[in-house]
């Protein structure tokens, strides 16, 4: 029993948001798993689909409203241009710590063997077309298909 001592064998990460900080959290965790020899899959649902939308992935922003860690009053965070400004500043810092922009990060994930799935329900709801999606996406699947892929020991699921 429990010969693997609880070792993580596979990370199943669900990304449901498209703010830059959430997308990066999902990507860093997925990539970090592969770097440790752990299998890794990403399920893009709801707004998370924007991270694999070729037309949108370049213009994702840091959330300045409703994000207490921004340490700015909500009304200031809501001023025009604030999200773009915060994003530009954040991207500069990210480049310093070797954090790639989203399209390059997707290429790294794909080359590293991370499986990527688009959620069928969200895909249909937002009227996506297959050509909207990043080429490395494996398929458009249902939540049931995703659960099916999560069977087995040492599989962890994370919702972002």
């Amino acid at each position: 029993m429990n010969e693997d001592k609880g070792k993580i064998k596979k990370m199943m990460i669900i990304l449901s948001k498209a703010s830059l900080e959430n997308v990066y959290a999902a990507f860093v965790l997925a990539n970090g798993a592969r770097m440790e020899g752990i299998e890794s899959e990403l399920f893009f649902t709801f707004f998370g689909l924007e991270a694999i939308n070729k037309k949108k992935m370049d213009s994702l922003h840091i959330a300045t409203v409703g994000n207490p860690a921004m340490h700015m009053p909500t009304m200031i965070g809501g001023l025009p241009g604030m999200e773009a400004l915060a994003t530009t500043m954040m991207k500069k810092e990210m480049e310093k710590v070797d954090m790639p922009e989203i399209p390059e990060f997707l290429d790294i994930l794909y080359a590293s063997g991370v499986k990527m799935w688009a959620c069928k329900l969200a895909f249909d709801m937002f009227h996506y077309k297959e050509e909207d999606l990043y080429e490395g996406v494996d398929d458009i699947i249902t939540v049931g298909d995703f659960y099916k892929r999560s069977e087995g020991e040492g599989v962890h699921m994370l919702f972002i």
Partner: protein
Amino acid sequence: MEKTIAGKTIAVNEEGYLTDFSQWDESVGKELATEANIDLTPRHWEVLKYLQKEQQNQIALSIRRVGKSGVVDIKEFYSLFPNAPLKTSTKIAGIPKPASCI
């Protein structure tokens, strides 16, 4: 800690990484590769030499940087050193484990 690798007494840390690169030679690399179930080919050696050069120049290693090196792309890097490529290859190369999240 010390460990006998290829008939030599080598200083390693608790994870098995060499702590003194001057103790590394190709026979040490070969034995560390065998421990990691890797059969070293000329392609492996090219990558290992590149990693050692980067380390010598004190460049922080990451998957992203290796992918941009022009020496090996990320897909091939994973196929040469399956499972955890950066951890495995740096151990074989006798250099410290990179402290990188990317």
